[in-house]
């Protein structure tokens, strides 16, 4: 079973600081990590490869620095990594990102399953996985929470939806987007880290993936960000201290009064 895992390098959100004046993110000194929700996909890919054989390859579109994410994925246990990097890719929205990734996947050619994260913690759209499937004309099973088994060319999967779990049979090749429940990501091993350090990571540009220049990057993106601002937190918290019986009683009373006033109880 040959698997491709698209992963994104994102800023560590814990560390996100905003420039109050411009409303933009301060990127200096911010640590970059693998999109945490992609770790579950990486782990599932490793488990499937261990059970059914084949190769598991990470691909990432981003600046040259994104190769760190690929090396980390290899340290966890993926076999290879491919970086898509080209100035022409800059400013891509989800449409253009998925286009470039799907072109790269076409170039890799030999694949059975593509596993994406549920969403990236920076862009936070969850659109790239289904969009890759659309470009490649593949079925997409989204919000996968459990892999049950694989037999006669069909995967049996659980899909988390609003009121429960769908049980799906999905034929290969296909695209999956996975949620946290699907796996427990392992930590990189020492041997994995050594392998990652030595790994030879091909870097593909727009020409390498035979991308139509009008469809990549900002030019290929149907959407435009026209304004960015910081949401105002306008709540005034009324704080009540509860450190003994009397004050606890009073604090609770205050809460019930508020809930009654707002017709919440």
């Amino acid at each position, binding site marked *: 079973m040959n698997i491709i895992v698209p992963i994104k390098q994102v800023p560590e*959100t*814990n560390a*996100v600081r905003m420039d109050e004046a411009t*409303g*933009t*993110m301060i990127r200096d000194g911010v640590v970059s990590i693998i999109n945490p*929700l992609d770790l579950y996909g990486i782990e599932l890919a490793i488990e499937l490869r261990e059970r059914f054989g084949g190769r598991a390859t990470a691909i990432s579109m981003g600046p040259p620095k994104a190769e760190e994410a690929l090396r980390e994925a290899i340290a966890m246990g993926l076999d290879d990594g491919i970086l898509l990097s080209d100035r022409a890719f800059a400013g891509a*929205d*989800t*449409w253009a990102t*998925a286009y470039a990734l799907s072109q790269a996947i076409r170039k890799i050619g030999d694949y059975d399953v593509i596993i994406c994260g549920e969403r990236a913690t*920076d862009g*936070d759209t969850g659109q*790239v996985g*289904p*969009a890759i*499937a*659309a*470009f490649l004309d*593949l*079925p*997409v*099973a*989204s*919000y996968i929470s459990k892999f049950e088994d694989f037999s006669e060319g069909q995967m*049996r999967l659980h*899909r*988390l939806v609003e009121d*429960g*779990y*769908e*049980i*799906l*049979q999905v034929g290969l090749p*296909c695209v999956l987007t996975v*949620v946290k429940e699907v796996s427990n990501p392992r930590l990189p091993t020492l041997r994995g880290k050594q392998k990652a350090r030595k790994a030879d990571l091909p870097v593909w540009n727009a020409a390498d993936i035979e991308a139509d220049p009008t469809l990549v990057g900002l030019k290929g*993106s*149907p*959407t*435009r*960000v*026209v*304004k*960015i*601002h910081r949401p105002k937190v306008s*709540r005034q*918290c*009324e*704080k*009540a*201290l*509860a*450190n003994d019986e009397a004050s*606890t009683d009073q*604090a*609770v009373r205050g*809460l019930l009064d*508020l809930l009654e006033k707002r017709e*919440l*109880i």
Partner: protein
Amino acid sequence: MSDYSGIWILAEQSAGRVLGISHELLTRGRELADKRKVPLSAVLLGNNVSEADLAELIERGADQVILAEHAELDAFRPEPHTRVMQRLVEKYHPEIIIAGATSTGRTLMPYLAVKLHAGLTADCTVLDIEPGTGNLLQTRPAIGGNILATIKTPEARPQMATVRPKSTRPAMRQAGRTGEIIREPVADDLLSSGISRVGFVKDESTANISDAKAVVAGGRGFKTSEKFKMVYALADELQAAVGASRDAVDRAWITYPHQVGLSGKTVTPGLYVAIGISGAIQHLAGMQTAETVVAINNDPDAMIFSVADYGIVGDLSEVMPVLLERLRERREAGASQSEEAGG
């Protein structure tokens, strides 16, 4: 571009019944249609859909219902649903399509946007029309709710967006409001799929958190699964759903579908009670749009207080029992009062 006209909302159904998200989308759609002075259509793919529910879509603001029915469209599968939608879009040329940011909407819309070469914006909280151009302005939180970005699609049509469930009220019902129901035939060759749904495990607990009017959420402050049970007790008293921080889920005090936040669910209830939750930015991303937020935490500087309307600074082990007791008294007083009134 000007051939594209009219606003569509993507209604959803399950087993022939129209789902509530459809009525919320009608609120959004009606506003846009009125601003653009164009008709509003509710598009619905399904099977054997209740006639009363279709009429209700019109009573709640749709000028038109475009219905595609087929046994194979009963359960959502991305490829057939996309192909049917694509045919409809190519026939009617709507300028805007809005769907719920549900498991269906979030999967169908990006698939469809690629096929239509259209722009799509996820999880919009505000939708508006740009004066002059008539473009759709789509505002959404990004980077864990740290910023709001306004996005537009200047050229490509249709302009597509998903909106979070519960971020608007359902459209009001106006009895006697009239409109047209158009039944579109579905060609068999659109219906093949690599996916089949072979079973379903109902888990109501996963549903009610996104749909609930009130959510009581617990975090690591509870320290043990035993103590965490107080969250359920309070939720019972408040008729609320139970939510949790990631740390509580990681400790297996509760399952993942209850997780609120960046890597869990986004909820917009009328009341959110956060207990023993610090208010990490990833948690806030999932709940800060709640109408009223209450926090109980023994650290007066906990971040959660910055998004709260009312905060109790104290030990949850002391505060919770008192709160539960007061609520119980109140309920029992209410019950005996109505008994007296009845008797």
